[in-house]
């Protein structure tokens, strides 16, 4: 009997603990402005969850609520099975946070920032290793640092205590491609040791490259939560057709096909799902040129904003 009990306990514990971040019906209203309006999502252990949306969609507000900088109007946020507000001190020992534009004390050096964070975290860290890895000079005052070097310092401060959860708000903003790659590598390394990553971005290529799943936020509401694989599988194609003769665009207004541009002998169509029906209609015409382009993640993303 006890074997079943232990098994049940382990099973429950595993299932329970596999959700690292849980956001339920989160709302944040500033007066009449609904910055976030009832979003819910979960992030699993070891996952890299991308949080996509244009400026003003509610990404930063969500992250500020998760970090307990601001308090939700409604809803719950749990991280590592702890309440993001009530247990914020405990949680912040486990969370590494980085914003797109790192704010630093101008009169301090990088070393002073690192020592300060180290003392506040109160545990051993890997700052030295990170300084070396990022080729960062910690002895310069931060007011003399370039935006890239400021972001390096931000990275060191967020990664140095080897947190279980990384919450990033557009972390690669204003970084050169080399440094962006370093950030991606560091995130990948963190997930290898079991860390969970939640990062907001409006850089689709970045999300496509490193995230496992993506939440798309639109005007404070969650428009969709999809895995990157299933997003790509939405199979949106752009078809450009040059006909030998003038054609009637209405002929192509069938289910799943949208006429984006029309000229006398040329059509640009967006096709969702299979292109079989379209090919059958095209076969009735003489075609001089045909170009089928697979949609980018951006096209897929824009789908949610129509």
């Amino acid at each position: 009997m006890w074997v079943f009990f232990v098994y049940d306990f382990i099973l429950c514990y595993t299932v329970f603990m596999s959700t690292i971040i849980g956001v339920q019906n989160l709302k944040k209203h500033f007066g009449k402005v609904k910055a976030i309006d009832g979003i819910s999502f979960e992030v699993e252990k070891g996952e890299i969850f991308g949080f996509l949306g244009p400026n003003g969609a509610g990404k930063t507000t969500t992250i500020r609520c998760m970090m307990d900088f601001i308090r939700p109007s409604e809803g719950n946020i749990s991280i590592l099975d702890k309440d993001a507000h009530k247990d914020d001190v405990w949680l912040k020992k486990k969370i590494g946070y980085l914003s797109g534009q790192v704010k630093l004390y101008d009169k301090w050096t990088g070393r002073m920032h690192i020592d300060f964070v180290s003392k506040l975290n109160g545990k051993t860290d890997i700052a030295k290793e990170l300084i070396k890895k990022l080729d960062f000079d910690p002895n310069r005052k931060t007011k003399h640092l370039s935006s890239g070097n400021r972001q390096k310092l931000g990275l060191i401060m967020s990664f140095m205590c080897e947190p279980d959860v990384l919450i990033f708000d557009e972390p690669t903003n204003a970084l050169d491609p080399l440094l962006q790659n370093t950030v991606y590598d560091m995130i990948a390394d963190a997930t290898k040791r079991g860390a969970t990553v939640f990062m907001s971005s409006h850089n689709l290529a970045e999300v496509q490259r490193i995230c496992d799943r993506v939440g798309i936020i639109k005007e404070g509401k969650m428009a969709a939560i999809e895995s990157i694989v299933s997003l790509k599988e939405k199979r949106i194609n752009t078809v450009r057709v040059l006909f030998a003769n003038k054609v009637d665009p209405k002929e192509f207004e069938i289910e799943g096909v949208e006429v984006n541009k029309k000229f006398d002998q040329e059509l640009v169509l967006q096709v969702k799902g299979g292109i079989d029906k379209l090919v059958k209609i095209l076969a009735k015409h003489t075609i001089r040129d045909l170009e089928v382009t697979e949609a980018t993640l951006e096209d897929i993303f824009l789908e949610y904003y129509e």
Partner: protein
Amino acid sequence: MFTIIWRTILDRKVSVIAYSLAGILFMWMFVGLYPSIKENTAEFDELLKAYPQELIKAFGIEELSFDTLERFLAVEQYSITWPLMAVFMVVSFAGMALAREIEKGTAEILLSRPVSRLTIFFSKYIAGIKAFAIFTIVSIFSVVPLAEMYNIDYSLENQAKTALLGFLFGLAIFSFSYMLSAMFSERSKAYMISGGVLILMYVLKIMSSLEDNLENLKYASFFHYFDANKTLIYGEIDTTSVLVFLGVTVVCTVIGAIWFNKRDIAI
């Protein structure tokens, strides 16, 4: 907590040193002047008596004589110079401590660490109190070596009591400004309101001394309770003053702490 306190004091060390140095220099100036003033006490007493009564009242000059160093300092140093320095120092420290951190975004460094908001609030509050205590001790007790240097008699007990009253005066203003700093995200707002209220208090004190029917207005002014004449000359500290300063300190600190703990900090 200690890390934040220490770091805050280090960040403001230049300001603490500058204010303390200014306090010493003013004290030096007045103590240095005093021997020549004392030599001509009779002439100065006559001159003071010739001043308009309203002016004498407005500056709280009740003792029209410079026969002791304390009487001279009560008029010259503690009627406006020292309180003004104290006000500038604590209001500026309070604004820098929280509102500026939020305004500049550096509060995110503290808020994203395993430190509660109350710890942040009280760490910076204690740092401010320590800095002001340093200024108070240095600026007021600098009279001891300076008076010895010029061979002038002084009352250490009265100076110590003035330091205590001055500290409580600064503490109350600091607590009030710090509460505003915890409420606002721009330090200019905290400065503006603190400055506005203190100017109003000063005006109320002057008005109350000019018009008999406005006399009660003085009770709404911190400057009324900071009675350097009574403390420095006679060594008396008014219990009401102590209670008012401590009361304001406690109320403002509690409101500020609760507000800071509950508010949104959009960095």
